[in-house]
C-alpha cells in the first residue's frame, strides 16, 4: 500500500468513477477513455499525496480534505463574473465553476481559436495531446485530474499569428451547494512563430467551498513567443491545486508570472517547464502574499534538455500571521544542455513569529559547461529603512506598506502590461489593508 491519503473523499471518488463518472463520458473516444482508466489506476493505488511524499512534505492535504468534497455534474450556474481589470483591453473568456459561460465571453480575434469540451474532444489531435505533455504515470494529483476532469478547453494560436490583444481567461468559483471538487483542464498550443498573451485570473464569491483541480498543458512550438500570467484574487473559500506543464521547442520564448495576491485558503502550484529545444528563453516570476492561515505552495521545475537555453526564475513571498509559504525550485541541466544559463532566486519576508516559509532550491546538473545560480533568503522588514521612513513623518503602518510593496516591486514591475501592473498593485494594497501590519 502506498503512503497516501485514503479518506472518505477518496472513497467516494473511487466509488463514483464507474458508477457516475464513466457513464457521463460515453461520448469520448476510446483513446481518451483508456487514458482515464490508466490514470484512475494510478490515483486509486496512490490516493491523495500525504506529507510522506517528498513532493508534499510541507503541504498537508489532510488539512483541506478534513471536509468531504464531492464530485457532482457541473450545474449551469447563473453567477456573473463581474471581475474585469480596469484599463485592460482584452478578450474575456469566463469559466464559472469550470464551465464556460459563453454569454459572458467575447469573440476572439482572428488567428486564434478557443474550444469548449465538446468541440475540443471531437478533434482527435487535441484529445491525443491531452495527457501527453503532462504525463501522470506517477503523479497522483495529475492522474486524479486526468481520470475525473469534466471540462477541457483548448486555446490554439495559429502559426505566424501575432495576437496583440491579450486573452483574459477568468476562473470564477461560486456557491455550489455542498463542498465540491472541480477537476478541469486546458490545453494551450502556440504554433510556430506566433506571439500571444494569456492572462488568467482566479476569483470566488466567498461561498464556493471548492477544491479546484486545474491542469494546464502548454506547448510552445519553434520560435513561438507566449506570455502568460496567473493571478489569484480568490476569497478564502477556494482551494486550488494547479498543475502546469510547459514544453518549449527551439528558439521559443515563454514568460509567466504567477501571483497569489488574494485570500484563497490553499494554493498548490506545480509549474514545470521542459525545455526540449535549444536556444529557448524562459522567465518565471512569482509572488505570494499570505495572511491568516493561508497556505501557498509553489513547486517549479525548469528542465534544460538542450544546449544554449536561458532560464530566469524570481519568486518573492511575504508571510503574515500564521500563514505558510512553500517554494521548491528544481533546475535540471541534462547532459546535452551545454551552455545553459539558469538563474533562480527566492526571497521571503516573515512578518510574524507564527508565519512559516519552507524554501528549497534544488539543482541537478549533468552538463559541465553551464552557468547556474540560485539563492534563497528569509528575512524581516529592514528596521533601519523603517526607522528612516518614520523619521520623515511617515506612519509605521504606511512605512511598512511601502517597504513591502518595494520588496515585491522587482517581480511586479516586470509585468509588461501596464493595466495589469496597476491591477496587481491594487490587489496588493487591498491585501495589506486587511491586515494590521503594525501589530504583526
Amino acid at each position, binding site marked *: 500500500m502506498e503512503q497516501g491519503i485514503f479518506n472518505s473523499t477518496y472513497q467516494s471518488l473511487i466509488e463514483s468513477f464507474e458508477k457516475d463518472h464513466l457513464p457521463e463520458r460515453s461520448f469520448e473516444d476510446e483513446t481518451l477513455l483508456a487514458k482515464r482508466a490508466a490514470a484512475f489506476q494510478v490515483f486509486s493505488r496512490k490516493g491523495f499525496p500525504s506529507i510522506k511524499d517528498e513532493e508534499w512534505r510541507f503541504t498537508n492535504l489532510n488539512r483541506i480534505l478534513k471536509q468531504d468534497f464531492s464530485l457532482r455534474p457541473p450545474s449551469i450556474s447563473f453567477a456573473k463574473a463581474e471581475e474585469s481589470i480596469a484599463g485592460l483591453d482584452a478578450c474575456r473568456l469566463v469559466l464559472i465553476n469550470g464551465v464556460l459561460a459563453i454569454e459572458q465571453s467575447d469573440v476572439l480575434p482572428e488567428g486564434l481559436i478557443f474550444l469548449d469540451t465538446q468541440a475540443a474532444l471531437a478533434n482527435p489531435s487535441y484529445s491525443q495531446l491531452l495527457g501527453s505533455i503532462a504525463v501522470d504515470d506517477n503523479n497522483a494529483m495529475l492522474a486524479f485530474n486526468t481520470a475525473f476532469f469534466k471540462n477541457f478547453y483548448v486555446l490554439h494560436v495559429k502559426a505566424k499569428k501575432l495576437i496583440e490583444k491579450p486573452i483574459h481567461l477568468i476562473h470564477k468559483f461560486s456557491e455550489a451547494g455542498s463542498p465540491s471538487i472541480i477537476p478541469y483542464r486546458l490545453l494551450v498550443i502556440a504554433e510556430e512563430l506566433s506571439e500571444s498573451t494569456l492572462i488568467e485570473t482566479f476569483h470566488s464569491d466567498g461561498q464556493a467551498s471548492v477544491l479546484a483541480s486545474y491542469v494546464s498543458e502548454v506547448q510552445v512550438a519553434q520560435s513561438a513567443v507566449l506570455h502568460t500570467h496567473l493571478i489569484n484574487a480568490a476569497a478564502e473559500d477556494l482551494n486550488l491545486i494547479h498543475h502546469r506543464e510547459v514544453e518549449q521547442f527551439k528558439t521559443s520564448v515563454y514568460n509567466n508570472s504567477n501571483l497569489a495576491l488574494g485570500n484563497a485558503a490553499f494554493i498548490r502550484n506545480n509549474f514545470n517547464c521542459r525545455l526540449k529545444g535549444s536556444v529557448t528563453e524562459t522567465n518565471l516570476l512569482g509572488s505570494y502574499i499570505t495572511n491568516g492561515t493561508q497556505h501557498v505552495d509553489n513547486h517549479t521545475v525548469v528542465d534544460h534538455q538542450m544546449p544554449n537555453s536561458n532560464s530566469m526564475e524570481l519568486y518573492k513571498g511575504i508571510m503574515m500571521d500564521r500563514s505558510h509559504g512553500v517554494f521548491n525550485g528544481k533546475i535540471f541541466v541534462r547532459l546535452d544542455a551545454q551552455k545553459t544559463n539558469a538563474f533562480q532566486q527566492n526571497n521571503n519576508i516573515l512578518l510574524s513569529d507564527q508565519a512559516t516559509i519552507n524554501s528549497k532550491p534544488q539543482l541537478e546538473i549533468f552538463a559541465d559547461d553551464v552557468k547556474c545560480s540560485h539563492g534563497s533568503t528569509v528575512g524581516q522588514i*529592514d*528596521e*533601519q*529603512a523603517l*526607522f*528612516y*521612513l*518614520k*523619521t*520623515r*513623518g*511617515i*506612519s*509605521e503602518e*504606511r*512605512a511598512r506598506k*511601502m*517597504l513591502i*510593496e*518595494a*520588496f515585491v*516591486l*522587482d517581480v511586479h514591475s516586470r509585468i509588461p502590461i501596464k493595466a495589469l501592473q496597476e491591477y496587481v498593485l491594487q490587489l496588493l494594497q487591498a491585501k495589506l489593508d486587511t491586515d494590521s501590519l503594525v501589530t504583526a
Partner: protein
Amino acid sequence: MLKIKNLQAKVDDKEILKGIDLEIKAGEIHAIMGPNGSGKSTLASVLAGNPGFEITGGEALFEGKDLLDLAPEERAREGLFLAFQYPVEIPGVSNMTFLKTALEEIRTHKGLPPLSAKEFMQLLKQKQELVELKTSLVNRSVNEGFSGGEKKRNEILQLAMLEPKLAILDETDSGLDIDALRVVAAGVNKLRSEQNAFLVITHYQRLLDYIVPDVVHILFEGRIVKSGSKDLALQLEEKGYDWLREEVVGG
C-alpha cells in the same frame, strides 16, 4: 524649543549618554563636537527616536512636549528632523512617493491640504536648486545608487521640503569634499530663520566655518563637558581632543 535635562541612554547594556543637559532656542545654531565614541550620534539617534537605544533617565522637552514619549513619526510631524550620518538606501521605494508621502503626513498634521501634483513638482524643483541636487529623482529609489555627496544633499533636500522647526545634522560633513560641503552649508544657511533651529553634530571644525554656530558644546564620554562660543571649536581644532582628556580627567 528643545530642553534636555540629565538625559541618559544605553545600547546593549553599555551606558553611552551619562546625563546630557542642553537648551536650544528658536533662531539658534548649536554645534556639538567631540571625539569618536563620545556619544554624539547616539544623542542624535535618541532625539529622533531610534528604537535601538534605551533611555535610562532624564527628559527632553520639544516645544513643551515630552519628546521621549512620542514615536519617531510623531516627532517628525511636530517638527524634528534628523539628517542621517548614513542615509539609508531603500530599493523599490521611489524618491517621489517617499517625499510626497512624508510631506503629506506632515502637512496633514499641520492641518494643511495636500499639494497638487503640480505644486509638489514646483516645490521640489525649487528646493533641488537650493541644494544643487541636479540628478533627477524621478524613477529612482530612495538613495539607491547615489554617491556619498548626493545622499547628503538628498538629506538637506528633505530638510528643505519638510521645513522642520529643529534640524539635527549628524556628521553631515563626513565624506563630503569641500565643494559639496559648501553647497550643503549654503543650503542650511538659506533655510535658517528666526523660527527654526539647528543642532550640528560634527567631528571637525571645518563645517563650522560655513555654518557658524551660536554655541559650541563639547561632548566627552557621554557628557557635555564644555560649552562656549564658536571660538571653542577653533580652540579644539588647534589643540585636539587630547587636551580635553587631560583637562576633564585631570580636573
